[in-house]
């Protein structure tokens, strides 16, 4: 099918960009690795996890999820940049499947995540991260992380095509992503938060993803006020539901936006 061929070519373009500008790859891995080291050594000593293996076991799933969540910003700013340079116009004037450019972009960004997650995993291992869920579950955890990043990448498509300026895109993406990753169980247990925030954190897709990964990596989740609620009991199912909801809403919206860009 020619649509698949088109998508493959666009994805290859994404990857070629990485080889031409190695800085992108370096910076997108340095930042999360820096987070691993900072959190591990700055907070690691003061957060009592009650888990064997210490804070780093809890931390790694949190940082993995945070990192893939930033796919949203990456996709958005990449597309905004293409739009500004008129490249989107050129692609849209080609006799190719109209969704190829955005689908290829989301896939390329997800492939980048594979590399980033691998580097982070190694960094984590070096500082003591030892997942104990069994090979299959750990692999499943990484697969979910990639899917979560992929779903958010579609939100990024809409943000990138809607904004007028690449800097606005960066700011919007960070304003959306930062609170979501911090108002969650990613870096510290929610048990110490005010009750209202605990409920927010409980339903926060970042938390359900983190909790799901922790389960798959062989850890026990801790909950405060929200123990026993549906997302706390079923983080994996809740996360899958979230991904489906995000895709169902944002794939058609983003594609529509792409076809009409600049109308």
């Amino acid at each position, binding site marked *: 099918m020619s649509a698949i061929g088109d998508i493959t070519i666009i994805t290859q373009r994404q990857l070629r960009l990485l080889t031409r*500008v190695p800085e992108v790859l370096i910076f997108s891995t340095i930042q999360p690795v820096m987070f691993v080291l900072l959190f591990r050594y700055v907070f690691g000593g003061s957060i009592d996890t009650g888990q064997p293996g210490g804070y780093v076991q809890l931390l790694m799933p949190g940082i993995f999820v945070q990192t893939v969540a930033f796919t949203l910003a990456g996709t958005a700013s990449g597309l905004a940049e293409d739009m500004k340079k*008129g*490249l989107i116009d050129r692609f849209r004037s080609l006799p190719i499947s109209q969704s190829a450019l955005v689908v290829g972009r989301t896939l390329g960004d997800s492939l980048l995540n594979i590399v980033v997650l691998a580097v982070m995993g190694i960094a984590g291992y070096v500082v003591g991260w030892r997942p104990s869920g069994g090979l299959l579950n750990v692999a499943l955890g990484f697969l979910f992380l990639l899917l979560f990043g992929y779903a958010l990448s579609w939100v990024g498509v809409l943000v990138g095509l809607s904004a007028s300026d690449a800097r606005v895109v960066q700011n919007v993406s960070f304003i959306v992503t930062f609170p979501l990753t911090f108002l969650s169980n990613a870096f510290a247990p929610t048990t110490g938060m005010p009750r209202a925030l605990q409920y927010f954190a409980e339903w926060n897709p970042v938390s359900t993803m983190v909790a799901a990964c922790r389960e798959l990596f062989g850890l026990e989740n801790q909950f405060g006020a929200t123990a026993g609620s549906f997302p706390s009991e079923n983080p994996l199912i809740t996360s899958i539901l979230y991904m489906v909801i995000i895709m169902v809403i944002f794939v058609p919206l983003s594609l529509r936006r792409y076809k009409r860009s600049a109308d």
Partner: protein
Amino acid sequence: MKTVIAEELVKTYDKGKVRALDNLSLDVEEGTVLGVLGPNGAGKTTTVRILSTLLRPDSGRAMVAGIDVIKHPDKVREVIGLSGQYAAVDEILTGYDNLLMFGQLYHLGKKNAVTRANELLERFNLTEAAKRPIKTYSGGMRRRLDLAASLIVKPKVLFLDEPTTGLDPRGRQEMWGVIQELVKGGVTLLLTTQYLEEADQLADEIAVIDTGKVIARGTSDVLKKQVGGERLEVVVESAHIAKTMQIVAAVSGLTPTLDEGLRMISAPVSTGSKALFEVLKNLDDAGIHALDVGLKRPSLDDVFLSLTGHSAEKKEDVA
């Protein structure tokens, strides 16, 4: 046969506040070049974007190669090439990578795409720079690569939006050469420009547009006649003014005007540099040394002035 037809196109932006196209109609005969001439903000880019399927008009009809642009944009995309106002090539990739990628997206297959990329690089004098990232290219090289990208599948209809804006005189000359070559190959071309000289050089017919409407159309000769063609200007010492007036009048056939302050004598001429040469020779024979001499070509401003009574004032370029 008309290969491009636009009928009463209307396009507004910002919820109707900006009327970019106001019942614009034009057409291009098969195998000819139409120059769409207009100042910034006249609606050139909007017209090109509608004809190349990137934008839907609010109302009106557009046909390209017999295909309805609004109903079958996908079919139109198979027969057109577009080179937008800003060179739309991937900055980070090399020239070769860009052409290869676009060739593959045109479904040439890897092998043919490679051959075609090399052919085009050669033809546009970019072989040497082929393996360098675009961000190291000059403005002229970028535009040439962009044009090459729009020619990958030999389109029936080509749209070029201000192909030489921002280029230095040499880049402009090169681009003109490239475009003239293309036209010999028989492509139907719609090109937009802000320069009368460019439309004159490249186009068989010119449509002058202002505030989203065609305000005049015809061959460049017809338009230039409307404007008055070229003017010859000579500056001499005060003592030589009278004699120079005679010489210029003889060559021009019309009574010259004199700007006493500048000591400049000027008159319309129809034979361009030939007239210039004649005047210089006659002055020389008369022992008169010209302090300054030149041909002033009518500019877009002159065309506008004579067509609309107002000059082509610069508007902010948004799109």
